[in-house]
Structures are given as structure tokens and as C-alpha cells.
């Protein structure tokens, strides 16, 4: 899992490296005629994702303490918060496309949709993984001694949350 996450970090580093080149080389950012990115809504959405990181931590702690109902409850909340994050991101994307910001529009659109889009795909994958873990938890596959599945999912979820903070600070202001 650590090797997989390291590969993911390097993958996003490549994308961020390209973004840095385009952003610093451009005299205006966002380029003239392009909409400004929705900072307020995305800040709240960042809070939603960070809260989901905390609830994931609570889920892992509940399992360590042997509380399966607590694990299920926290996994539900985490999955719900992740879904809310994706829905808000989706609605913001729809608005930006309506304002003329598309993938083909230029480097601004291309870098924005590539970076944030890949992160969104990762969150989607993490939510699906979380639901699978929840399903397994309902079948009593986890206990205080058998928690590898939950901890691996938790590591991935923390990665996705931490990555979003970096992307948000880099892309949105």
C-alpha cells in the first residue's frame, strides 16, 4: 500500500509540475476572459472532505476498540461526506463549463480539469472502496484483531484528503 501511495504521489507530482510551469509562465492567471474559480464553495467543500478524514480516523479507532457498530456508523458518515464532496465538485464543474471553461479551451482549462478531475476520480474510487469495506463490516468480517482491510482503506482516504489540501492551496487562490 505504501508503494502504491508513493506511486500515486509521484503521478500527481508530475501533474502539479506541469501546472507550475503553465501557471508561472503565464502573465495572467486565470487568463483573460476565463472565469475565476469558486473559492468560497470549494473552501466549504474542503472542510467537508477534511471532516470525512476525521470520521475515517474515528472509524479506525472504533474498530481498534472493538466497536463494530461505531465502525459502521463512522464509515457511513465518511462515505456520505465523500459523496457530498463529489456532488458539490460536480455542480461546480457544470457551472464552470457553463461559463466557458472546458478541457479544450487552453492550458488553464486543461490543467484545472486534469488535476482536479484525477483527484475526483480518486475520491470516487475511495468512496466505492469505502462502501465495499462497509459491506464487509456488515458481514462481520472485521474485528479488533482483523482490521487490515479498514486500515488500508483509511490510509487511502487520508491520502486523498491530504492531496486535496495541496491541490486546493495550489490551484484555487
Amino acid at each position, binding site marked *: 500500500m*505504501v508503494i502504491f501511495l*508513493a506511486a500515486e*504521489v*509521484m503521478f500527481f*507530482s*508530475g501533474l*502539479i*509540475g*506541469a501546472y*507550475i*510551469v*503553465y*501557471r*508561472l*509562465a*503565464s*502573465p495572467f492567471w486565470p487568463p483573460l476572459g476565463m472565469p475565476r474559480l469558486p473559492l468560497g464553495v470549494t473552501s466549504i467543500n474542503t472542510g467537508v472532505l477534511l471532516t470525512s478524514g476525521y470520521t475515517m480516523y474515528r472509524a479506525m479507532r472504533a474498530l481498534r476498540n472493538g466497536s463494530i457498530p461505531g465502525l459502521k456508523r463512522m464509515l457511513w458518515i465518511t462515505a456520505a461526506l465523500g459523496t457530498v464532496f463529489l456532488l458539490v465538485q460536480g455542480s461546480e464543474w457544470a457551472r464552470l463549463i457553463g461559463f466557458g471553461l472546458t478541457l479544450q479551451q487552453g492550458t488553464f482549462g486543461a490543467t484545472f480539469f486534469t488535476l482536479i478531475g484525477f483527484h475526483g476520480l480518486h475520491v470516487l474510487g475511495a468512496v466505492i472502496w469505502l462502501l465495499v469495506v462497509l459491506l464487509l463490516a456488515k458481514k462481520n468480517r472485521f474485528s479488533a484483531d482483523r482490521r487490515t482491510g479498514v486500515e488500508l482503506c483509511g490510509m487511502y482516504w487520508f491520502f486523498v484528503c491530504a492531496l486535496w489540501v495541496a491541490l486546493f492551496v495550489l490551484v484555487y487562490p
Partner: protein
Amino acid sequence: MSFPGLKQEFLIRGARRAGLLAVLFLLFLAPWNGNIAAQCAMCGTALSSPDDPLRSAIGWSVLFLIAMPFTLFGSIALWLFLAFRQSRTKLPLAAMLPFREESGVDERVPIKEVKQ
């Protein structure tokens, strides 16, 4: 953090192999250094103008990309170091000694004997 069910010998052997592979990889690269630098000619020509903002942008991007692997592997190394140290303080010395499964004999020394 501890590694339940994971023998430390296995981890140490893995780390040694990874280090050996890294050294071999660097030795393999050594004779090719001149050719690797040849790829920079394109960027060098494109970024010859000192006032071009692209020059500074690529510089920052390269710095970022150079820093990432060091940050990454540094973090993993730190995490492993802390995990080893923590597991070493948690486990008694007897638990770290090898257990020969093939003979079925537990050769680990009881903790009391080790202390004496």
C-alpha cells in the same frame, strides 16, 4: 506503530536488497551520464532568453519534481525508523530471536535467562 505478524528479519532483508538494487542502478547509469545530459539541449535552446518567464517557471517545476522523491522516501524512511523503534521497545528480546519452524523447536530464550 507495530508490524504484527511481520518478521523484522524479512523487512531488514528487503531493505538491504532495495539498497543493493539502488546502488546497481546508479552504477548502470554512470557510463551514460553524457548522453542523459544531451536531452537538456532542447530545453536549453528554448529557454535561452533570460527574461522569459518560462525559464523561471520550468526552474521551479524542476525543483519541485526533484524535491518530491526525496520528501517521499524520506517520509517513508522516517516512518519505518519510528515503527522499528516503537516495536523494539514493545517486544521483549526473546521475541526477536529466530524461531525455526522446520525443526519444530522453539530456540527462543526465555526473557528471564536473557536478563541474567
